[in-house]
């Protein structure tokens, strides 16, 4: 005990970060966060709950009412203000604890090799989660029979894109300037008239001002209303947030400020860009050039094209419930074409991308309407890491248990020999 009092402060911090006590507290916190997140997601939705409890550094409140109602206990609205470490922070410190205590400080000898492997596998699992959180691209690709696509759109990430459409680019390749949602989603309206941010780019003959972002809204006619933000007779009316984040339709006010001081005002609304056939952006003309400015989901390119040749669905007999969806596709890479089938639980894996059969839709207005197949697309650099981690953990624990069993049997036999 006297040794601990003589330790330097860094050594004490190191000892604290390595400790079993810290590991125990962190695991209990993870348990609590998981429980609260699971309960809250019933009313707040998976995406919002995940963002609040698992993607965050700090949790500022717990919706106790929602948690109780999720357990079928009648409860009124009650938001409890708290300061709890969020899942991101807990897992980061737990990773550090595993690295320092479970890998660096642990005694390394043949007896502990299994435990070291198991600790490494847990750390690797956390790293896989961090890589996935930071670099994973996830979205969908919807194709009508006969249609070819090589872009997929994010489920959640929003962007404002500016494309010069006239004159078109000299090389014929369409390009868009991209503003990510983390640069405008904080521009929510407030009592002081709202927040604004100005975006610039050397290639643009104007500055784009974005202000008063509404995560779920609908354009309404301003007739009879005294809304000062009204543009071209419309304003954005806020709507309650839908727990399923994909169902929210966002909007933002935009102002194009030309270098000569002239201004053009517009409204960007997410639904206008969601049309599968053709988006309806806000069009502005500056210095003889035409620009399309749009608010929509972030899009990523696939390294190959996919053509939907045919879509089949099998129904459970006598019902409209689908038993199986199958998409017959052609994967096109340059001039090389390859026929593939994507069906439930049998995705297409290629070039680091995975295409799953997600859903479908049909135009029921006519007997021979067009079928649309929707693929969930994911690119995750750590796609297989959790599997490898589990295999490593199994190997580590197997080694540890066999070694423990060997030692136990050895002790038992020597004890019986001594007794004899």
């Amino acid at each position, binding site marked *: 005990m006297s040794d601990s009092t003589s330790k330097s402060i860094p050594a004490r911090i190191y000892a604290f970060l390595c400790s079993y006590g810290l590991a125990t507290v962190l695991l209990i916190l993870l348990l609590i966060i998981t429980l609260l997140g699971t309960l809250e997601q019933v009313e707040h939705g998976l995406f919002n709950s995940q963002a609040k409890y698992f993607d965050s550094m700090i949790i500022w409140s717990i919706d106790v009412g929602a948690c109780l109602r999720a357990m079928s206990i009648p409860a009124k609205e009650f938001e409890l203000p708290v300061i709890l470490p969020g899942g991101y922070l807990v897992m980061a410190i737990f990773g550090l604890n595993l690295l320092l205590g479970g890998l660096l400080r642990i005694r390394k000898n043949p007896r502990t090799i299994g435990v070291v492997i198991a600790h490494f596998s847990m750390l690797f699992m956390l790293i896989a989660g961090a890589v996935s959180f930071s670099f994973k691209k996830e979205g969908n690709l919807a194709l009508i029979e006969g249609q070819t696509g090589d872009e997929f759109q994010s489920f959640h990430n929003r962007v404002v894109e500016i494309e010069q459409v006239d004159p078109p680019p000299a090389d014929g390749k369409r390009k868009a300037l991209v503003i*990510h949602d983390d*640069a405008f989603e904080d521009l929510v309206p407030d009592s002081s008239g709202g927040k604004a941010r100005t975006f610039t*780019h050397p290639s643009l003959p104007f500055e784009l001002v974005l202000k008063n972002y509404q995560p779920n809204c609908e354009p309404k006619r301003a007739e009879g209303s005294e809304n000062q933000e009204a543009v071209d007779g419309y304003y954005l009316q806020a709507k309650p947030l839908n727990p399923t984040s994909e169902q929210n339709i966002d909007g933002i006010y935009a102002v194009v400020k030309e270098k000569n001081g002239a201004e053009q005002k517009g409204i960007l609304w997410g639904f206008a860009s969601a049309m599968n*056939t053709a988006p*309806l952006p806000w069009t502005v003309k500056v210095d003889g050039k035409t620009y399309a400015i749009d608010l929509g989901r972030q*899009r990523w390119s696939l390294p190959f094209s996919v053509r939907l040749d045919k879509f089949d669905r099998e129904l459970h007999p006598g019902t409209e419930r689908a038993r199986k969806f199958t998409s017959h596709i052609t994967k096109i890479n340059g001039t090389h074409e390859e026929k593939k089938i994507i069906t439930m639980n049998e995705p297409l894996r290629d070039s680091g991308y995975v295409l799953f059969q997600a859903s479908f839709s049909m135009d029921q207005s006519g007997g021979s309407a067009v079928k649309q197949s929707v693929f969930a697309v994911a690119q995750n650099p750590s796609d297989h890491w959790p599997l490898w981690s589990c295999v490593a953990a199994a190997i580590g624990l197997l080694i540890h248990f066999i070694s423990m069993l060997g030692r136990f049997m050895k002790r038992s036999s020597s004890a019986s020999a001594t007794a004899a």
Partner: protein
Amino acid sequence: MKKTCPAIALIALCVLPSCKRAGERMEITETREMSATARKPVLDASSATRFFDESKESSDEPRQHPLLWTTPEGWQEGPPSQMRLIDLKFGPKQEGECYLSAMPGQAGGLAANINRWRGQMGQPALTEDEINKLPRKTLLGTDAHFVTIDGDFKGVGAEAAQSGYRMLGIIQQAPELTIFIKMTGPKDIVEKNAAAFDTFCGSVKFRPKGPAAP
């Protein structure tokens, strides 16, 4: 002390992303190259159109169909949808249908679409050579591939195929747009309406820009 350095680095790595703050002025740093199959935007759409304010559209600027055509005598016209720009029905019990649809780009290619139609009629796929030898008709002033397929027609969502059907189809490919006209129905009724089909196809034209056509 050496062992604490990776710890501090790891904490910094975890905490730094949350410190990102946007200023009042920002330079756009990302450019995205769009795919050749990316959707083409509709430019200069009014606010009423962009916000799907149909009552405003109808009162301020009557919504115009992008095409003009003549509906053959005895045929019935249905309302256009996103998938069917022109939707017609014919036959004594309106059992035949004929519709025009358009898709951006090559829409998967000529061969894939013709063979998709042949699949719907229970017929084997054609080779590229056979497709090249298909007859042509004129649609919107340009040559377009024409197919006649007899067989058992199984539409989308249909439980069973309908036997004794005929399909007449036209596919016209342009770099930015592929236009389809597809007519299906009992073979005898389609035969009787084949001339009307030609009349209809010949009548389709783009609505001229400018004042509303009568």
